[in-house]
């Protein structure tokens, strides 16, 4: 792990700079002084500066992931805020939002403060998402206002979808006075039942209980209607089905307050990959059919889906080295993210690099209301340097997370993050 304090003066020289906020691309240098942007393009820098040659490389905003699980407090054997930060930096991420399904959950102003204090020791920016209901019980609203005051950036009962429509309405209504998004893992628990993979031809062959796409689309539809009714900001996480895409695209025609994300794994795999019974592919919502996968790619192209989020979900080896029914849901995803989405969306689907970078930078930042004009003098540097053409094979030693539940080992990735700069620290990829 090569992570160091930035030199007092650092210059990234001769790179292709992509500014996704101002939609500009130019060849040039960036000067970072005391961890802040001190000059861009034309400037005079001290001779003692540390010079990093970036020729042939892309210099852009640090990535932002608005959906990760860092397991602290309660499950530090799987991940901590610090180890999660290392995984993030390795993937080019300088800013993440952590989901509140910890133990105990982030359901009080005190727990939000706990995260913010711990995050101060981490090399990236970590924002807590607060729980919607106490103990994620689905019935008692948390102190959303006080949690917001302490720094909660959104609200979600992630992992335990809010089933009660009236409760969802209350949460959305209440959130309008705070102006932050409500994120509901959209699955109807009754329809999902005990499903462990997508219900379809493959689940019928494998004998695994299916989770139909209807479980997602019915809930997405409910949430979209409630969002329109209340005027609240709704963010739909990890969209997995064509049916849900259809609902979102229709609502987006009339409601600008709706946003959506997709994970790299829903863009990369289809349910035929499950024939191996690989427990690392057991995720919620499940990986669906090829038709769903292509509709998700199309939805990214047309802007129906706004951003990429990894849903980085670390689990111990023993939680995955078991049979499919008993294995935990989720996979890690920060380290492999860029190489996967650049391969699927860039190389295979013709999305340009600038647009691809926006899906990882300006788009998630604007959903969460974060500062987006990062290449302004005086702004704390959040920078990613990458080589979009690099072909590499993802291996266990690329994982910086405390957990190794990735299905990508041995897969060829396209494009690699080389340097990540955040909070006065610099990370060099091995």
């Amino acid at each position, binding site marked *: 792990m090569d992570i160091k304090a930035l030199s007092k003066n650092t210059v990234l020289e001769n790179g292709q700079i992509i500014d996704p906020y101002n939609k500009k691309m130019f060849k040039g240098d960036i000067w970072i002084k005391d961890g802040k942007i001190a000059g861009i393009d034309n400037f005079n820098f001290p001779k003692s500066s540390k010079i990093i040659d970036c020729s042939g490389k892309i210099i852009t905003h640090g990535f932002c992931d608005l959906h990760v699980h860092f397991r602290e407090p309660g499950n530090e054997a799987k991940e901590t805020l610090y180890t999660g930060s290392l995984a993030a930096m390795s993937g080019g991420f300088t800013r993440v939002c952590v989901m509140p399904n910890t133990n105990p959950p982030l359901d009080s102003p005190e727990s939000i403060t706990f995260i913010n204090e711990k995050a101060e020791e981490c090399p990236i920016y970590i924002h807590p998402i607060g729980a919607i209901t106490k103990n994620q019980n689905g019935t008692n609203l948390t102190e959303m206002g006080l949690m917001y005051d302490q720094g909660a950036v959104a609200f979600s009962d992630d992992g335990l979808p809010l089933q009660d429509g009236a409760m969802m309405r209350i949460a959305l209504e209440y959130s309008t006075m705070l102006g932050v998004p409500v994120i509901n893992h959209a699955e109807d628990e009754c329809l999902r039942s005990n499903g462990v993979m997508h*219900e*379809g*031809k493959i*689940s*019928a*062959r*494998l*004998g*695994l*209980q*299916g989770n139909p796409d209807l479980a997602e689309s019915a809930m997405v539809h409910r949430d979209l209607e409630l969002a329109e009714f209340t005027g609240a900001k709704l963010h739909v996480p990890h969209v997995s089905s064509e049916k849900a895409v259809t609902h979102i695209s229709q609502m987006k025609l009339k409601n600008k307050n709706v946003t959506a994300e997709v994970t790299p794994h829903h863009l990369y795999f289809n349910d035929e990959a499950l024939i*191996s*019974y690989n*427990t690392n592919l057991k995720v919620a919502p499940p990986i669906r059919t090829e038709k769903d996968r292509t509709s998700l790619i199309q939805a990214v192209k047309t802007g129906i889906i706004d951003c990429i989020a990894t849903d980085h979900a670390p689990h111990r080896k*023993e939680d995955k*080295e*078991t*049979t*499919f*029914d*008993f294995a935990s849901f989720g996979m890690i995803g920060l380290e492999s993210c860029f190489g996967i989405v650049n391969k699927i969306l860039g190389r295979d689907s013709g999305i340009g690099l600038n647009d691809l970078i926006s899906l990882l930078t300006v788009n998630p930042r604007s959903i969460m209301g974060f500062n987006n004009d990062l290449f302004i003098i005086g702004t704390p540097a959040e920078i990613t340097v990458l080589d979009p053409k690099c072909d590499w094979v993802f291996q266990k030693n690329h994982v910086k997370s405390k957990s190794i539940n990735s299905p990508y080992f041995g897969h060829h990735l396209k494009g690699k993050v080389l340097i990540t700069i955040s909070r006065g620290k610099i990370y060099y990829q091995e």
Partner: protein
Amino acid sequence: MLKQKHLLGLENYPAEDIQTIINTAFNFREVLERPIKKVPSLQGVTIVNLFFENSTRTKISFELAQKRLSADTINFSASSSSLKKGESFKDTAQNIEAMKIDAVVIRHPTPGASKNLTEFIDSIIINAGDGTHEHPTQAILDMMSLYEKFGRLNNLKVGIIGDIAHSRVALSNIYGLTIMGAKVKLCGPPNLIPPFLDDLDVEVNHNIDDVIEWADALNVLRIQRERMGRSLIPSAREYREKFGITQERLNYHNKNIVIMHPGPINRGIEIDGSVADSESAIILDQVLNGVASRMAILYLLCGGKSNEMEVK
């Protein structure tokens, strides 16, 4: 010899290997008819019966098959609930393999468990039922029983009746029978037949009388009472009326039809007692063929060579 090291399921299993197993099983069936029903074929071979789910007849059948072949057998039973909190599946398997064993017969409540096991240990694995996925040895004994009765499987018309969605017996039978050229129709309440069967080369018909009229043989599945608790089936009475293989129904159709059932039977629900006891039913032949089939499978997988086999 068989092409695959393990017997995990019959999906894409080679037809010639199914035929080899059935042929070998008929040889062992002769052994079972002798006064001394034991052969030394698997002497020195150690087989573990790893049962993570309750089973009576499959376990007895496997144990008997192992004893008839002179293999050394040990039994491991664990309820799935104790698995959840205690030792992991991988640890359990590796601990047992560390004692130097040759083969594992595994029953587990999770689909794919036997496949997962092949990734943790090197022994030969035989699937004795993995959740709602496959139960290949049951399907082989069913096919052997049909073969015994009809002398062929090709173009045989077989109806599988009952809870298809939750049945490993059904899925293995579908795979095995279609590979062997038989025609398969499924019959049961629509909510107990999975909606995504397009790839399986079977037909679905919800009218039991149509299926009886069409079929040469029926494989009648056990209706599990817990399914009724979940309201998947309104009542035993309604099930019997709509899908039961009743005496009246068979009298009405008045045709020769072979009746199979994997057991245990719910008399008076999926099948009438008088039908189960009738000449048409081959339910007890299936039990005997079960031992013979499992002997054949163990023998062919665990090192036996056909020219060494002394069964004559």
